[in-house]
């Protein structure tokens, strides 16, 4: 895989980061998120119904809520603490919070591999406040 990935808030790494194996696909329940650690960074990986994976930073910028415990659909995830909403494909906040960094997650040989984007970005993504409505 050599896809260049744009992180949340437009952070782009010139060189794709090395992929990190975070476990077998069957550890990831369909329609749910799981938190994993990639190079010391907390990442929430979501398994879509159609087999896709999405990955965002795991900590909600609003009050530190566990994003991986949120409810998801094909488009967004909802933080369980205060119901802030983030786009899974971009990490953008739909409820006026800072954006989350978005990472790349793929299945390779039955294993889930995560490549960090914006790996030097501050945790929680760039501090752009946005008032996008759902």
């Amino acid at each position: 895989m050599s896809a260049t990935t744009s992180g949340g808030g437009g952070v782009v790494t010139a060189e794709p980061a090395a992929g990190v194996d975070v476990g077998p696909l069957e550890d990831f329940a369909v329609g749910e998120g799981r938190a994993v650690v990639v190079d010391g960074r907390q990442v929430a990986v979501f398994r879509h119904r159609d087999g896709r994976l999405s990955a965002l930073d795991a900590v909600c910028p609003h009050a530190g809520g566990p994003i991986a415990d949120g409810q998801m659909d094909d488009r967004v995830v909802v933080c369980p603490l205060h119901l802030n909403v983030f786009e899974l494909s971009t990490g953008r906040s739909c409820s006026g919070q800072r954006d989350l960094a978005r990472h790349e997650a793929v299945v390779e040989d039955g294993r889930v591999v995560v490549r960090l984007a914006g790996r030097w970005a501050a945790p929680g993504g760039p501090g752009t406040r946005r008032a996008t409505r759902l």
Partner: protein
Amino acid sequence: MAAPVDTSASQRTAEPAAAEVPAPRRGGTSGRRRLVVVGNGMAGARTLEELLERGGGELFDITVFGDEPYGNYNRIMLSHVLAGEDDESGILLNPREWYSENGIDLRCGVRVTSVDVHAKEVVDASGAVTPYDVLLLATGSSPRIPPMDGVRREDGSLLPGVTGFRGLDDTRAMLADAKAHQRAVVVGGGLLGLEAAYGLRAHGLDVTVVHSAAHLMNQQLDAAGGAVLRGSIEDLGVTVHTGTRTTAVTGAERATGVVLTDGTHVEADMVVLTAGITPNSELALHAGLTVERAIVVDDQMRCVDSGVAEGGGGAPDGVYAVGECVQHRGVVYGLVAPLWEQASVLADVLTGADPTAEYHGSRTCTKLKVAGVDVTSMGLSEPERAGDELVVFSDSARGVYQSVVVREDRLVGATLLGDVRKTPVLQQAFDRQLPLPAERLRLLFDLGDGDGDEAKGAADLPDDSQVCNCNGVTKGDIVSAVEGGCTSVKGVMDATRAGKGCGSCKSLVGQVVELAADGALTEDPSVHWYVPGVPLRKDELVAQIRERRLLSVSAVFEALAPGGEHDAKSTMGLTSLLRTLWADDFVDERGGRFINDRVHANIQRDGTFSVVPQMKGGVTTPAQLRTIADVAEKYDVGMVKVTGGQRIALLGITKEDLPEVWKDLGMPSGYAYGKSTRTVKTCVGTDFCRFGLGDSTQLGIDLETRFQGLETPAKLKLGVVGCPRNCAEAYVKDIGVVAVGSGRWEVYVGGAAGASVRKADLLATVSSPEEVLTLVGRFIQFYRVWGNWLERTYDFVPRLGIERLQKVLLEDSDGLVAQLDAEMEEAVAAYRDPWAEGEEPRTPGQFRTALPLLPLPLVPSRPMGAPGGMQADAHSSSAATPVAAGAPA
């Protein structure tokens, strides 16, 4: 316009514009008409301002005669000048330069002595004659001089030391006198008299108010209100005499006091006359205009019998009058607000901006300008007709008196004394004649969670006041959202998150949105949907789910959502509904559950969870307590807390520890996390309590056993008490049961004691615990089927009405009872303790932490030995002395 001239109009086709322009009038420059204003007070000047705004400067050559040698000032504010709260410069409205800048010929200090309405001329004191096309009389009024011996000198002038309180000169004289003297008598205890008394008192004078009516401010207040006001005025140090007149002013060269009806002599160095006003109508009277109590005008402020040119297409010349000197429809106003309206109408008429403008009278609102004594009065002070409603609140100890008079559901009068916070909302209701709340008391008080609060709030709230306390949303935020294009309440709630916390502010949010949208409010149809992602009401959705046999959340989305699109915000509600509808057949997609329902614990702010084991009816045992204590120590829980529902919560358990904690506890779940039946709170009942009428403890345990963990549209809190002393607060539970003796039990539904507080409605009184169980089950199932997602019973019950619930559940009016009972039986049978899942996780990683590294944010642990903190050991120091962890005990 004269008829003979008009006949030639059709022949003057070479000058087509001529017919459009009013014919030039005699004398004015550039063909302008000549406007002469007699009186440079607030009415005259305000009319000029309104005229200029409408281009009157181009239409008229304007001449103004003013008695007083000043520009125009705000007479209303003289009370503040007297009290030293403002100075003269602060009340100036239009300086003399303003007149010259606007081309107005101001004749200051020149008195007009006569008007010739036939010659259309005025004559002033210097003998000069000024012709006019339009004459405006704005002569105002003068202080009424009550009939008293000695008040005037032989030449007719007032005795020195006696003054009215009308103009700047009066005020200056009073201020000068106040510096040199000690005692003042104010004759007249109306609005102006009290303001004068207060102003003089502020200068340290001994002030006595003499008022001929039985109580102060009798024009605005009823007797009870007047009595309360008297207390407040006396608290200022003012002496008050009511029901008595001043028959004489004593003193030869200067006033030395007044004599009252009973012969009492009140010594005073100055006497202020504030016993009413007399309209200045002599000029009009002598000119042959109709004068009754004041100069009579019609709805366009035109004087009567004044030679006004009639119609004919020309501009309306003639004589007009505005202000305190006029009588309109029988009413003479002594206040400023009517004058604004009159001036505006007259300017419309004179400039032709709106030739049909009419003045129909004013609804006046009076406010007393005495610091610390707030009085607002509008309309009637007492009922006048049979059928008028009167609501009165009086608290004379606090100086508070409030009353409203209601006629045919409209506010026709209001008096607020001492507490005038309701003025804006009452004034709005009065001015606009808005419909009133059925509960009239709400006009004066904010009663709990009802509409009254919001009705007040929406309009009165300052922009920076917080509307939604949960999410910190201000009125300004909401207004901005509306201005940004959100015109539906739901749209604004989504954009601002207002009303999305505890929800108790929702109706206030709605009102602010409505106010800000100013009529452009739209209703988002989704407010009626059960969940946002499926455009169906609950009954429609249930019908579809049943008809198509949709067993999973995915199946519902694919069959019923637009484009088959899944929606994260809808899954939880759908999961709950499907479990209610299908019991055993439900296809459980775990991702459709909220995290609490996936791991059967309540998520906390730091991502840990609370564990609350079942403790039915709040009854526990030493063994259970010992076990809980052991578990708390083993897992080093952050806090052990007795909950509001009579149970023990262990807080700060990590997700991965949950299965082990459950196993070590060996107790069923207490459901302290779900949209489901929770706990049943009970009192001691009959076993030990000497008042108990029924075994509430056992019934509570039975209820909790039967209905444990049942999914409901919103959480369901129950309570059972053994007597109406209500120790376990059954009256404010979603379902409350009260023993009333002789084996009988009352069943209440729809109570609340959270963000909303509501006493529950009595559903029925039954004769046995078994009947209680049946009826409660029937109600819960009905609520499960018909309640909207997240609709608490305190909204559900009032929405349907308790009478309707009684018909359906007791009389079986809809033939539903058998089905409800059967469905409940099935749901109860399908119950399985969720904590059993700890033994075999339902999904991979069900109990793996979602925050593996950083426990953010850290909830501060209470120190060892501190109240609420863990004991380091049995010998640690007194709980009252916090001891830092690790410090020597």
